[in-house]
């Protein structure tokens, strides 16, 4: 079935879904309003930056929710794709800075190189860097997904193996000889599109870009899960063998969504790095990848809006509490997770009375 055709008998189903998920529309609206507010209201740069980072995290959470909530694949390695986006973005910023200012990044000087290595060629051009980031994330996801899905690795096995993958990547990137800054990673980005990095306009611009991207990703993801492909994703999540014996190549379906999700995660990384000003292998720590899953679970698994709410809530709390109540934050986080996992199977959306899908829908996971 092609996703675009919703004529005749299929239409009521489509409408039902749209009516049942007003949250996404609300969130998209909020994103746009917030972007407008940042431009017009000019709040403190610190706040603008925080909002921008939260938007990047929300994009990351949506990317995971697509594969976990809708396809039943819990990736504990999504930090890898986030990092790919982040690293390529950092490379672009440094290459751009080198071209504009003529000084080499300090880690390049440290490695004793005379200039940027050959594979950095062209990275100073933003469109190429964007393509490279998305392409690389997609390629890595494709290769990993191909072997994993073809050999039918799924469930907790997939989670463990994806975690091992991100762990391996972390070990590799910590190695100094890998050549991307090792433990210190990359930092000290001077310019963005020729503008000085810390300028208020740049900070606002980045935050607005992140918000708009979030809105677009949400709308796009919403369209996807509402389409025929989305129904196949749910079918695959709930009974993969059944779907396969009806003539569908679930490997191909999973691979496509998986690669798409990886690219969205890379997009989040691209938006994140210029806002925090550093990328280092820490983002590849298995803990961070688990945390992404925690955001999704807290907000509400299998609800795009839930992922956004979870990511924003947890990270806003983290920003605030790690300064305000540093001792209490880990306890609050672990308590929140346990509360959600035990009492609110559909995440905090349960509290808001917005529970849509009946509880048996999440029973298999």
């Amino acid at each position: 079935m092609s996703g675009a055709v919703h004529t005749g008998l299929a239409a009521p189903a489509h409408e039902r879904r749209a009516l049942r998920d007003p949250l996404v529309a609300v969130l998209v609206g909020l994103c746009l309003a917030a972007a407008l507010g940042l431009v017009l209201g000019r709040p403190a740069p610190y706040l603008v930056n925080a909002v921008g980072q939260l938007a990047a995290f929300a994009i990351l959470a949506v990317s995971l929710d697509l594969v976990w909530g809708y396809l039943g694949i819990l990736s504990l390695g999504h930090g890898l794709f986030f990092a790919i986006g982040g690293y390529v973005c950092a490379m672009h910023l440094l290459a751009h800075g080198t071209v504009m200012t003529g000084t080499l990044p300090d880690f390049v000087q440290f490695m004793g190189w005379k200039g940027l290595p050959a594979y950095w060629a062209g990275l100073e051009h933003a469109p190429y860097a964007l393509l490279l980031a998305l392409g690389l994330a997609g390629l890595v996801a494709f290769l990993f997904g191909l072997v994993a899905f073809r050999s039918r690795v799924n469930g907790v096995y997939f989670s463990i193996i994806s975690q091992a993958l991100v762990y391996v990547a972390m070990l590799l990137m910590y190695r100094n000889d890998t050549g991307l800054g090792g433990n210190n990673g990359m930092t000290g980005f001077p310019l963005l599109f020729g503008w000085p990095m810390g300028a208020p306009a740049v900070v606002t611009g980045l935050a607005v870009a992140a918000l708009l991207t979030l809105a677009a990703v949400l709308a796009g993801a919403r369209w996807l899960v509402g389409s025929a492909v989305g129904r196949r994703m749910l079918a695959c999540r709930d009974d993969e063998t059944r779907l396969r014996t009806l003539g569908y190549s679930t490997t191909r379906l999973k691979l496509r969504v998986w690669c798409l999700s990886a690219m969205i995660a890379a997009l989040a990384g691209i938006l994140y790095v210029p806002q925090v000003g550093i990328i280092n292998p820490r983002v590849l720590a298995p803990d961070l990848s688990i945390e992404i899953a925690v955001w999704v679970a807290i907000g509400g698994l299998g609800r795009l809006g839930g992922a956004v709410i979870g990511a924003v809530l947890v990270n806003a709390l983290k920003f605030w509490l790690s300064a305000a109540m540093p001792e209490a934050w880990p306890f609050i986080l672990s308590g929140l997770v346990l509360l959600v996992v035990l009492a609110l199977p559909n995440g905090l959306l349960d509290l808001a009375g917005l529970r849509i899908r009946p509880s048996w829908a999440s029973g298999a996971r």
Partner: protein
Amino acid sequence: MSALVIDALTVAFGRFRALDALSLAVDPGEVRAVIGPNGAGKTTLLDVISGITKPVSGRVMLGDRLDLTRCSEAQIARAGVRRKFQKPSVFPVLTVRENLAIGCGPDMAPGAREARIAAVLGEVGLAVRAAVPAGALSHGEKQWLEIGMVLAAEPGLLLLDEPVAGLSDAETARTAELIGRLRRPDRAILVIEHDMGFVEAVADKVTVLHEGRTLYEGGMQGARRDARVIEVFLGR
């Protein structure tokens, strides 16, 4: 030409041989029942035909060209093989209609699909339940919905794994009648069932499996008289 030829098929789980050099041929238009005690290898047989389990040796020929043991589940399904599982396997969060739409398979044109869904809804008697999520259906309704899903793509070979397990007598009779209606000259049907009355009602021929091998093949009447069959079913 047979619709399905199974040739010296062997399946092993560790040291246990679930199927042991089994051979079997089903003609087009035939309804074949496979019966046998628990552990005889009935479900394994369907697993191999539908591509879920790969055999150690042997072939499963669909028509005279396609060896199903070399195909993926999806390829097998697209070649016109559909299977109804023992446990009703429907997609609980999707509505009846959406389930059937997926049952039509990936290749059907959108226009044809809507017509087909409407037809199947009538055939399995779920037209009034079309907008209900499948998870909310009763057990019997789920069985019929699944039969509808496997019918939607008009399969040439239909595999039914215990279609009346857990159904009431009335529902069983209705299912038998439904299968009777499914019979077509270009369609072979393979049924696994424990309910002997049901088997007698629907099947042209029965194959009795025991410990992965064919114990008997022929009419149901003959099976009832066969000494070995009696021993296997009653002797323990």
